[in-house]
Structure formats: C-alpha cells, structure tokens
C-alpha cells in the first residue's frame, strides 16, 4: 500500500512499490493527461509536480512517493482556466498535443517559483521537455503571456 495525495485528494494504491508512478497515474487511477514518451527522463511528456516540483513520473517508483503531494495536468485546474492553459489556448500552442500536458506542468513549476522569468530562463527551464512538432517558440510566448497575467 502506498498512500499519497493526488490533485488534492488522498489516494491509496496497492501496486508493486517499484511500479512506475506514470503507469499508476495512468492505468490504476485512470488520469490519462500524463503521457508516456520515452520512459527515460529524456522527453518530459510524463511531467507532474511532486511537492510542487516538476519531475518525470517515468523516473519515480510509486513506492518512493509515499506521503507526497502529486499534481497532474488534471489537477492544475478543473476547467482549463489556469493562466498557462488560457495562454496555451490564446497562443494556439499545440499541434499534435501529445507533449503539451508535460510542457504545461513544466512551465507551471517555473512560474510558481519564478513568477516573471526572462526569456532565457524560460528557454532553459523548458529544455527538459521535447516537442517533436516544434512548437517551442509558441511555448515561450505562452509562458510569457501567462506570467504577465498572474
């Protein structure tokens, strides 16, 4: 049994403690917004917040997060009104969209730590996540827009 908080609610799961948090979130709990892209800390599609910090959920075993507070894209806002989500829509960022939950979660961690990042800080921070569709410049603009609005 592992107990942790997910999007503000306490959950108990009995998955093997070495099972990837990513798979527990997706298949056990059923929240599919967090994606699998590489399983290797190389793409960031699986990015979630662990106690407020952006982390690769493909690199965490569920047993490691006992007692932690996990936030996924579904927990960022109920209705897509987080400033980053609004900025993502305003800038029409996504193409295939597969990377975007991870991008938004990565960006959200940046803004909560640094509410008005420079372009350079944004670029640097966002380089952990891949976007094969090449939406990077729009991602930068959307993060800047959201930063202006919070």
């Amino acid at each position, binding site marked *: 049994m592992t107990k942790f908080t997910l999007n503000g609610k306490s959950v108990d799961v009995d998955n093997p403690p070495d099972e990837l948090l990513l798979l527990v979130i997706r*298949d056990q709990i059923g929240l599919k917004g967090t994606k699998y892209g590489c399983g290797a800390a190389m793409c960031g599609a699986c990015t979630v917040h662990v106690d407020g910090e952006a982390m690769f959920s493909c690199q965490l075993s569920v047993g490691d997060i006992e007692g932690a507070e996990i936030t996924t894209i579904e927990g960022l806002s109920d209705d897509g009104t987080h400033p980053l989500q609004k900025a993502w829509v305003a800038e029409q960022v996504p193409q295939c969209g597969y990377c975007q939950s991870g991008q938004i979660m990565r960006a959200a961690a940046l803004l909560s730590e640094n509410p008005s990042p420079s372009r350079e800080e944004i*670029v640097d921070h966002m380089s952990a996540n891949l976007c094969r569709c090449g939406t990077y410049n729009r991602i930068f603009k959307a993060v800047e827009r959201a930063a202006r609005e919070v």
Partner: protein
Amino acid sequence: MTGQAEKTLSRRGFLKGATGLTFLLGTGGLAAVRADADTAAVLDVNPWLKIQADGQISIVFPSTEMGQSSYSTLPQILAEELDADWDDVVIEQLNADDRTFGNPSFGGILYTAGSTGVEGYFDPMRKAGAQARDVLLQIAARELGVDKGTLVTEPSAVVAQDGTRLSYGELARMGTEGIVIPDADTLTLKSFEDFRIIGHDIPRRDVFDKSTGRAVYAIDVTLTDMVFACVQRAPVEGESAVAVDDADARAIPGVVDVVVLPDGVAVVAETYWTALMARGTLDITWSQNSPHRAYHSQHTLALYASQAETPPEAPAVWAEKGDAPRAISDADQSVSQSYLSDYAYHAQIEPMAAVAHVDADGKGAQVWAGTQTQSWTTQTVMEVLETTKDRVRLNMMTMGGGFGRRTAFVQDYVRDALLCSKAVGRPVKVIWTREDDVKNGVFRPMAVQRMAGGLSSDGKLTGFHHRVATPTVIGFFNLSRWNTVRPNDVISMRGAESKFYDIPDFLADHVITERQARLSPYRGIGAAYTGFAAEAFMDELADAAGRDPLDFRLDLVQDNPRGRHLLEKVAEMSDWRNRGDRAMGLAFAGYHSSMAAGVVEIALDRDSGEISLTNMWIAADAGLIVSPDNAHNQIEGGAVFGISCALTERIDIEAGEVLQSNFWDYEVTRANQVPPIEVYMAKVDAHPTGVGELGLPFVPPAIANAFYAATGRRLRHMPFTPDRVLDVLNG
C-alpha cells in the same frame, strides 16, 4: 456518385417526424438529399454533412489528425461555402475505409500524408458546401414564395430582402419537396474576398483539450476487461523466434498469455508494468539466417556512393529538360560534388500503440489506432484476420505525431494488437516502448547524391544534373503501389526536380539502390535530403561563378514571379544585402508546389564543433492559406524539424541492428536549440498547396551555406554532428 447531379426529390423521400437534412455528397457531387427520421433508411454512402433541426451542422472529417490541424481546416472549407456559422459545426471523424470520401490526391485512398489534405479536398469540400447551401436557398424560396435569386445567406441563415431570416435549422425542418439538386460544377463558388472562415484565424478545435490533458490518443484508450501487451521483437528484420522459454514469464502473477508473433513474442498481462517485467524474463532463441545481418549502414552508404558514381543499370529519369550532361560537359566551367545523408527516425512523441478487440469468431474486430490511413488500417485488419471489410470497425484516434511513421500498408502495431486479442479473447492494448519504436523504426533512407553543374563564362547556370542514389521507399512500404508507379518513386525523389528554377538543361535521375533497412515516408519525404543537396550545391555553383547566392538564384526565377518575390522578401527580412561577415546562409526549396525561401544565421563553437542557430527568416508561398495562424505554426514546426534533421538526427545500423535506442542517443531539437523564427506567408490568389512539410527542406542547406559563410568550408554529410564539423574544420 457522379452523374447524378440533377434529380428532383419526391415527397416519398421525406418521412414523417423528420428531424433534419442529410446531404449525400460524394466528391463527384450531390447524389441525394433526404430528411432524417427516427426510422432513417440505411444508405449505401455516408453523408458529408447533416443539418439538424436544432441547427447543428455535422461535417465529416475525412482525414486523420496528427497535429497538422486538418481536423479543423477541412471542415472549415465546407462550412465556408455552406455559409455556416462555425460555432454550429460539429466535426465527425470518418472511421471507415469509405472511398466516397477518398483523398483525390491519392486516387481516392483514405490517406493523410504529403501535405495533401487541404490541396486535395479543397474543391470537393467547397462544392459539397455550395450544393447544400443552394438546397437551403431553394427551400427558403419555396417557403417564402420568392425568387431564389433575391435571397442571400448569412452564417447559418437565409435572409430575404424584407429582412425575414430563416435559420438553417428551421429550413432543415421544412422538408425538401420540389427541390432540385444542382450540379456542383454549375454553382458559382464564393470569391476569395468574400470568405468569412477561410483565411481568418478561427481557433483550432482541439487546442483546449490538448491544453488540459483531455485529448484521447490510442495509447489512452481503456476498455472493460482490457489487458496489455508488450512485444519483444526480433532484433533484425527477417528473423523470427525459433524457441521461446516463457516459463518464468508465465509464473508471474498477472501474466495472461505469451503469444508468438511472426516477428516477435508478446507478453499479455493485466497491467502494462507486469507485461514489461515479464517480457524481460523471456528467453528467446531467434533465427540467424536473415540477409539483413549482413547490413552495416557505413557499408550501405559506401555502396550507394559507388553506385551514384557508376550506376549498375541505367538510372530512372525523374525530371528532364534538354540535355544536361551535354550542357555540363560543354560548359565553360563545370563543378561536381557528392552529398551524403544518413537514416533518420520519425521520433513522434507518442510511441506506437493500438487497442484491438477481436470478435469471438476471430473474423472481425474493433480497433482503436492512430494511423494516417483508414484504408490501409482496414487492409491490415482484413489481412491479419483474413476477413472482409464489413467486419472491420475502426476508431481513428488523434495521433501524438505522425510525420510518415503511421502510413504503412501493413501496420505492425495494429497487427500485434489483433493477434494478441485473438489469442486471449479479450481487448488488448499494445504499447511499444520508445526503445521498441527506435529499434524497429522505419526510416528515411540513406542517400548519396551526385551533383554536377555547368556555368557560362559570365557566371550563369547552363546545366544541372541531380543524381540520387537511394532505394525505393514505395517499393518497401507499399509494394503494390510500386508495381503501378515504378520506376517513379515520389517518396524517394521529391524535390530533386528543382521545379521552381528555370534551368536551360536539367536532369534529375534515380539510381535505385538496394534496400538495407526498413523504410518509410518521413516529413518532407525526399525533399528532406534532395533539398539539402540541390541548394547546398547551388551555393557552390554561385561561388564558382563568383556571384552572390541571392543574385545567382534570382537569375533562375525570372519566370517564377512568386518565387522571385519570396527570395526578395526573405532577403529584405534578413537584411541579406548588408550581412557583412555574419554567418548567414540562404536556400530556396519547397515541397510539391509550395515554396519557401529561408535564411539562417548560425554561431559556431570551433572547439566543440557545435553549430547553433541564432536567427531564421522564412518567406513561404503555399497558395491560398485556409488557416493562417495554423499554417504559421506548421511552417515553423517544419523548420524546427529541419534543424533537427540537419544537426543531430542519425540512425546507424550494424549487422542489421539499429544502434540507437532512445532520445539520449537519437537527439531531437530542444527548446534551447531553436532560434527566433520569423515567418512571412505570401498572400496569393491560387489553389492551396499545403504547409505541413514546407518549412523543412530549405533548413539543412541554409545551415550548410551559413557554415560556409563562417568558415569557407562545406558540410556535405547530413547531419552536421560536432564530430563531422570538426573533421571538416580540421580537414
């Protein structure tokens, strides 16, 4: 569907309790119109659009969505001519191989590739909308007792001269008695300046869901009783499992079955984690006799190079004008060079995944998959289950990237899911790991391109010969198609035609080499490497002629005013004429009929050999642009893909095995490698020609040309990895 244009409808067509209108419009024209009733008759074609009594308009989306946004743009084309209020439109994914909606650019196959969606469907979907609008006008004229010519439409309503408004929903309720279905070809379509939707920035329909984690991809599909499969595939193409010791795997709680596939072994389990763990315990003896074990990519490239030099048989002519070899040998000055490129992998971020639920009799299935073709996914199911089309139920899922990866005639990930589901009698989700996807990738082929050009004494290009030594891609991924088109392989050769230039004597030919890896279309198809050779070599010619690369090219676009405009525009955007000693490179390439002129500025770290881009300017012309903001996103995305191709992407094969395995050794461009990109799109009154690949082809040559500006040396082997850059600098 053709030849049925004029048809008067009888009362019989309108059942009591009608709730809306269904227009049956094939790409050939409107065939029937009827009112929908609770007891609606089964029809032999599917409708393009339906208008409900409540005003809701559903429009069929005939392609599949992989990020290019056809899901929004194609229905917009129909909605424009229908004069629909876009907010009334719901989009219906076409989930069957219904050739009524076939892509005219692919001979009616349902196939989403090659930036052909808007280009191919533009006319048929406009006509479909216009026909439906005409029917609505007729209904209104009948109801109001006025002449149809006195009526106009506003979004989702017909308006009479006295101001009376009838909404499309109301009209749908009024029935179609006495209505004559017009011949689509006789209707006057809107002129471009009257467009309310096309050319305006209507937000994409999928952006909210893709910004909230709600978009559902094949990998997300969950069914009751579903199990998961993980496949250990043969390490080398052509091998299969000759012995499998699965005792340990079967002993793991949660393992449902171990299924031997033609080229792999699948573990089916209650969770993906269990399947993954159990796969690691399999002890598989693979056959050892595949000829692919003899293949090493370095040798492959050497073979192609020697065959480019001395073709074993006469090359297939791809494009020809005059006598290029003669013009070159007669020229005052001639130049020749070879350009090399490696295998490249698609790296779509959603790995291959599919869900299949095979019927109890094993002769039918429901399938959830993200593929670029309803037709060939259907074909895959038919072949694997040895069944007929009517037993195939598809759910075409939005894709986490395509780029050509999901185009194959037989889709192995779909096949895996079917075979596993058939074996265990439950719905099965197959997910390839990233490593599976890289190791079993289908690649852009290696190529060696032999370029030769002739110059007159006054520095003009007189002859140009572009020879491409590379295998046929079509011959591998769709053999039956190859039998029809051979020896012309557009996937391997696109771009080598240099069609935007007027060159007096020109030849592009294809030395069709042996295939030594699995191949596939890839973003930009041939233009991803032919553009590199053609435009890097163009700079070498300009240099030999002692001319500025811009002036040298401008001479070749005298008869192409749109192309000339792009070159002049990008020169202005980048301040090309005043570049001084900035490391800037220019290239002019394109894709099919879409053109892009681009300039990049680079910075070079001479110690590490690393190239980085500091600026990029693009001037593009893709005809009429349906969704400018999305086109901008696509062109920029294509350019980022181009940076990736140019700088890092490389697959190596040794003894038939792919050496790379994940994003740590197959590097894709990241946020910190992307420069500011300025995109200009020409406004032209011409048929749309597609934007999905357009941003890519100019990028590698522009970078190579910028490198020359910085160093006086040429990069002729793509990708320009730091080790290669250092070799060139020190060579």
